[in-house]
């Protein structure tokens, strides 16, 4: 089910994925305009009521801009866009989007971004770590200079998760490095008891 940015309508869905891409060309700050899309009002309300929301790459940036998640994503340390298969550790396997993973499971999914360096003030970073809200961490090498190797985080309730890497590109060995990304989507089914 595709939602349209300009409609105030979630069409009765049970969860929302904000996908990657380049909303408004990323000409301003990534996600800074899309967060004002009419449908974001409904998404924000639903997220606050506990609806699972996943933001991938540009979707993560939009969730940060919308203050559904803390912190921000800034230009890669290398100053270049980077696309590669990336090792991650699942730091929290209890969120709505990660319960199909084993705790501390190590996975490989592609990362591809130009402005993917997660940043927040020390206090926020400490709080995220302390509350178990760092959901994914880069292992091997950090592709973009994210603070504390953070690849993905959640809100306090665990229903809203954002990450820079692209699990949708690791669902089939034909078109990606493997199938490690599938668990994000099956987590949701598990939660729904499917």
């Amino acid at each position, binding site marked *: 089910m595709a939602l349209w940015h300009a409609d105030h309508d979630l069409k009765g869905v049970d969860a929302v994925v904000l996908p990657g891409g380049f909303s408004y*060309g990323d000409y301003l700050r990534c996600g800074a305009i899309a967060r004002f899309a009419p449908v974001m009002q409904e998404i924000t309300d639903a997220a606050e009521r506990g609806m699972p929301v996943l933001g991938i790459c540009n979707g993560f940036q939009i969730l940060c801009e919308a203050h559904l998640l803390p912190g921000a994503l800034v230009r890669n340390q290398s100053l270049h*866009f980077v696309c590669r298969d990336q090792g991650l550790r699942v730091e929290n396997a209890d969120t709505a989007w990660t319960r199909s993973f084993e705790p501390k499971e190590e996975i490989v999914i592609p990362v591809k971004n130009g402005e993917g360096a997660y940043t927040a003030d020390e206090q926020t970073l400490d709080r995220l770590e302390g509350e178990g809200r760092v959901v994914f961490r880069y292992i091997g090498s950090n592709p973009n200079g994210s603070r504390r190797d953070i690849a993905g985080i959640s809100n306090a309730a665990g229903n809203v998760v954002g990450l820079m890497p692209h699990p949708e590109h690791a669902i089939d060995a034909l078109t990606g490095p493997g199938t490690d990304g599938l668990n994000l989507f099956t987590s949701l089914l598990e939660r729904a008891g499917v």
Partner: protein
Amino acid sequence: MDSVEHAAQTPDHPQPFAELGLKPDEYQRIRDILGRRPTSSELAMYSVMWSEHCSYKSSKVHLRQFGEKAPESEALLVGIGENAGVVDVGDGWAVTFKVESHNHPSYIEPYQGAATGVGGIVRDILSMGARPLAVMDQLRFGDPSETDTARVVHGVVAGVGGYGNCLGLPNIGGETVFDTCYQTNPLVNALCVGAMRHEDIHVSSARGEGNLVVLYGALTGGDGIGGVSVLASESFDETGPSKRPAVQVGDPFTEKLLIECTLELLHAGLIEGIQDLGGAGLSCATSEMASNGDGGMHVWLDRVPLRDATLTPEEILMSESQERMCAVVTPANREAFMAICEKWGVTATVIGEVTAGDRLVIEWHGETVVDVPPRTVAHDGPVYNRPLEEPAWLKPRQAAPTHPEPTPPRETLLALLGSANNASKAWVTDQYDRYVRGNTALAQPEDAGVLRIDEETGRGVAIATDCNARFVELDPYSGTQLALAEAYRNVAATGAVPLAVTNCLNFGSPEDPAVMWQFSQAVTGLADACLELKIPVTGGNVSFYNQTGETAIHPTPVVGVLGVFDDVARRTPMAWGPDGELIYLLGETRPEFGGSAVATLQGILTGMPPAVDLQAERVLAEILVAGSRDGMLTAAHDVADGGVGLALAEMAMRAGIGARTWVPDGVDAFTFLFSESAARAVVVVPRSEELRFTEMCGARRFACERIGVVDSGLGEVLQIGDIEVGIAEMRERAAGVLPSYFA
């Protein structure tokens, strides 16, 4: 205002035709066609449409061979002459692909030049009715250690990536080559491939009297006007913005909207004819659509929405502002058309209509500024049969000794991996998204990019582009055939059946008889080889004037081959498989070093390129495809630049698994490892398939020799005869080169 009426009354008004690039006889011809002097708007249109870039006036007489020698092909649905050729890939799917150059703009303004090169080729594919699916880039730069090279490389790579990534198109392959001959003439070629259902194929024509001509997309600005500003300043006072960039500026987000909007319009059946606005902007779109149609066209130029209100009619006609399309729409569909454009936030304006006559008439605030037969602008431009002369230096160079000094194999292999041309290109390709759209089954550094088109059936295509310009420099006829042979082989190595050819012919000045001779040889070689391989040329692009002063680039005819898969799941990758599988070399190795990578390491560019054997290429391709189809191959890699040695090293690095290989009897290690004989590939065969595979090769009388075995017991080491090279050492060597220059 220089209206038609005014032009008729002032026949002797001097016009800056020479500054616009027209020769005196060409200017006279325009006067003869019109029976009066052209208006400034008409002069602008003719000058840009009769330019080499748009009219192919020097290349046309040679390019005819692609049609005349075309092999019979049931796959060809739309041939040369449209925005891009279209081929049938089965199950009702049609695929269109094309390469175009954006060389000069990319030297002046590397980022925007490269970005708009991608944008332009994507719109060509879109205008056939296809959804653009992927891009590739063929890049050639000067010496990597020159400081200006870094300026160009950084801008071009960021531009290709910035535009393609933002559009959401995967970049699935291409070439990055360094040679001093490109120092002040870098080549930036971009390829796009798209797919559609057969019934969605559209062409560029304006038909049906009373139908509307709609311009939609970005607003028109002063960018990309180039030489026409001469005319503008001649005819008008100079109060407007004076310095306008000759290089266009790209806006990939607008292009993304344009793609989605156009596809929705096409699928809703609201478009009668469609054309993208590229080189020569509205001049090209209006004259070509009218020329291809069944009537005339009337355009109200003052209705064109502008980004800069001071633009003159001549400038509006010439503007190459990006992200614009032109469609012919019936009056009944006007409202539905506009509604879809509004949904996508795309500006759309009715700027004209199809008329009964046979004239293209353009009006500016009530005055007629253009009144021409459109065919004379778009299709009946001048044609030149320019003088040809084999360059005097060629024969002595071909006769000079070819043999590089044999050097120790291990050091030679590492030196190759440490050279910019054979090193890892990850520094470039990691800046491109290869995954987006989720249908990339293989991408660089694999032999070809492989895309799934149909998610239900797995039907898909493979595309490779190649050109070793050193071969072409040494012998343009066979060198161009080798470019085709390599792309053909690369496609077959992945398991796809080669189906169609495109090209981007980058050469020096056509006014130099030596360059023109190279060009004619290259085209003849390509046409002859396509006929023999039975795959048609579906389209292409010519870029001349890639030279500074007297020095031209090496002739660089980039050749692209498209192959088809019934199911991409059976693709053959280049990384070798599990332990114990057998490594075979297919094809014959002769001491052939002319234009080779090892000769280049020693600064030698003499002799003849490797011999071309197209029948051998055909049989090799059949074996590679059959091997994929019948599950006899776990890996395959084409042997080209750097020979068998580099092929083995690349397979080992890709796999991260060691192998034990040996030098066959009857050949010295240096020749075996570094000769670049054509029609060869390294393949990996499971033991259970060995007999079946060797029997298949035997039945086809194709040379097939076991040269090794995958062996992780060695550790991560590639053993070749009595030498050993660690995979980590090779990777480190290969990965470090481009960052050492550019990071």
